[in-house]
């Protein structure tokens, strides 16, 4: 009998396991594949503060501060680098968005700075000329998520947690976790941290896959220095139901570049969609024309666990007494993993959390109006 049985060894499951183990709880983590095999491996690893909504801001900012605390102890292979994010504005309309964002962050004490066209050019000379400017959000960072997940689980293991790989959970209820071979692992509390697969265990969870493509290049150290995202991203990525692409590029510690991003709704096949890949890369070269000549090593896809209101599901699952969810993090699971784990452990230990957990409760009405 375990105190906590966690289904999923992605970064969210790993963070939850670490927090629970730190409280002295007896933890088991069940993973059908291996550590970080899902969206944790497929994603970019961008630790970013978002301002889509107050709730999104609160969770991402809280989590970012937890990342800053964790950073000093992370091993080298986690590749934590505080690159900052440059939200790139193509025109004057997007510059007004830069100013709005700047004000939003300033009011909430998030360090940011407005760059005009000339300072943007100095900061990132590979960007095409003629862009209007950017917002530089200084404390955003870049990290290599699979190794972070492994590190968190190693720490949890040092504190007595058990990590079982190759075990697929098909049932998670008040009794425990049921496997495909009919056996059950009993626990006092069960946590569904199965990411994009969370709904296959609990079909009531409003999670749908949202497919993304990424490309990684060979090594070009210093080609770009910050995470670069077009400001149109917010318009295109979240607020429409159609397939979309956006310019989003990340410098890795190795000198490689990760290029994204794409969003396709309700697609769960892993195949690479050549036409959306082409659109995604064409978009990137509109911002950085010299990208066209760089050599790409690999293209892959991943599934984000999307919810209707783009906020994760953290807390007790309706219809159960001892089953909790920590899933539905869409494209922000790396950022919000650490805060998710804190909210979860605070709820389990009946402590008052650092931020209000209400907006992420599983019972909330996730429907989006207007």
């Amino acid at each position, binding site marked *: 009998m375990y105190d906590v049985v966690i289904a999923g060894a992605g970064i969210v499951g790993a963070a939850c396991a670490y927090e629970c183990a730190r409280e002295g709880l007896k933890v088991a983590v069940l993973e059908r594949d*291996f*550590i*970080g*095999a899902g969206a944790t*491996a497929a994603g970019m690893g961008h630790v970013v503060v978002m301002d889509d909504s107050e709730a999104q801001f609160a969770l991402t900012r809280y989590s970012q501060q937890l990342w800053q605390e964790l950073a000093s102890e992370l091993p080298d*292979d986690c590749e934590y680098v505080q690159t900052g994010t440059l939200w790139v504005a193509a025109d004057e309309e997007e510059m007004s968005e830069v100013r709005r964002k700047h004000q939003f962050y300033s009011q909430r004490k998030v360090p940011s700075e407005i760059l005009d066209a000339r300072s943007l050019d100095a900061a990132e000379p590979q960007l095409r000329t003629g862009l209007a400017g950017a917002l530089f959000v200084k404390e955003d960072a870049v990290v290599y998520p*699979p*190794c972070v997940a*492994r590190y968190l689980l190693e720490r949890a293991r040092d504190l007595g947690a058990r990590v079982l*790989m*190759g075990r697929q959970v098909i049932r998670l209820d008040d009794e425990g976790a049921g496997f495909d071979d009919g056996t059950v692992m009993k626990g006092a509390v069960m946590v569904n941290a199965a990411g994009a697969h969370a709904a296959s265990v609990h079909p009531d969870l409003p999670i749908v896959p949202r497919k993304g493509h990424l*490309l990684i*290049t*060979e090594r070009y150290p210093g080609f770009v220095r910050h995470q670069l995202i077009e400001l149109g991203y917010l318009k295109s990525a979240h607020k429409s139901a159609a397939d979309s692409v956006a310019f989003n590029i990340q410098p890795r510690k*190795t000198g490689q570049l990760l*290029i994204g991003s794409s969003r396709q709704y309700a697609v769960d096949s892993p195949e*690479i969609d*050549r*036409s959306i*890949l*082409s659109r995604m*890369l*064409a978009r*990137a*070269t509109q911002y950085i024309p010299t*990208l*066209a*000549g*760089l*050599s*790409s*090593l*690999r*293209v*892959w896809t991943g599934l984000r666990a999307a919810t209707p209101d783009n906020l994760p599901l953290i807390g007790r699952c309706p219809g159960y007494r001892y089953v909790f969810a920590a899933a539905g993090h869409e494209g922000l699971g790396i950022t919000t993993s650490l805060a998710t784990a804190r909210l979860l452990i605070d709820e389990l230990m009946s402590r008052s959390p650092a931020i209000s957990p209400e907006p992420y409760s599983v019972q909330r009405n996730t429907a989006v109006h207007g």
Partner: protein
Amino acid sequence: MTGIEREVVIVGAGPAGISAACVVAETGRSALLIDDNPSPGGQIWREQDRHGSDWQASHWLRRMHLYRVDVMSGATVIDGDPGRRAIVCETANSVSTIRYKKLILATGARELFLPFPGWTLPNVMGAGGLQALVKSGMPISGKRVVVAGSGPLLLAVGAYLKGQGARVLAIAEQASWSRLARFGLGLPKQPYKLAETWQLKRALFRVPYRAGAWVEAALGGTVLERVRLRVSHRYWEAPCDYLAVGYGLVPNIELAVSLGCQLSGGCVQVDSMQQTSVPDILCAGETTGIGGVELALMEGRIAGFSAIGDRLNAQWLFSDRERFRRFARRLQKAFTLREELRHLPSEETLVCRCEDVSYRRIAPMSGWRAAKLHTRCGMGPCQGRVCGPAAEFLFGWNCQSARPPVFPARIDSLIEHVDK
């Protein structure tokens, strides 16, 4: 982007690809031979072989010129779409979509590298790699060379290097005498059968051939200085300038896999007409199973006839193909790699050279994908072509993964190749 259309498109201009292309071109049909090297010949033939003493090479290379086979050299196939019968091809300054009625994959094989202490030192090379370098002009005369690994290639390489003036100190074959004898390949102290088969016996006069011997370590500071061999229960060590190691060949299946072709035993699965599991895609040569030049030529011709619908001419060659396949199977069994080779790497020996990943970091991983994600093994420019097969041998993992592009490709190539 340019668009090209041919009746038969052949990928790979080694023996299999060239013979297939000749068969097609001889009937007057439009054929295109695509190859990533600067000139046709594959890993085994070179342009100068057209006028050389290797009669097979000169025969086929001349024939290719005689029938004016259309060759696109320096071109890499980076992607494909079997549904539209198209492949995408990148050259130094262009990208083109090439449509086919029939596609023949003759992508050949590469050398299998197994890590041992010192294998990454300069002047430690693949056996075929060193031969290729010497063929393209690297001076070897008077240099001390040890050739090691497994299989008939070692004899060919040893003979060639000796012919070029190298001092071949030893040829170390990991298979034991008893094993070679059991498969009818060797008699005490000389691999007569093999040397005869490859007409190398005289060329290897006075070169010590040690069976049951393998490289324990390559020693040296910044460059190779000495080689330590294990010969059954003893050690043999000697100073040398080059170490050429080849543990056999690995079929280049990446393009076939990305097109959806089914595999069997790590090779592309084909029927008697060299047809793969994907309609209108055929495969010939080492990619369907390691078997040597004769088998590759035979399969290439059959694939050529098959592609143009000439079943009768293809069937004429079946019995010859079967004979070569039988011999290839016998070789495979005789040269099966011994267990000891799995234990050669030390903790610090690099398994992945692109990303500098040591044996110690890879060994605890649960599988290939976990090793890639957690250690970066296989994530470098070779896309796991070198360390993948090594990890497969060392750890018994399935190291196949097919992610486009098939080879590193320019970003603009990935933008342009889609039909808009």
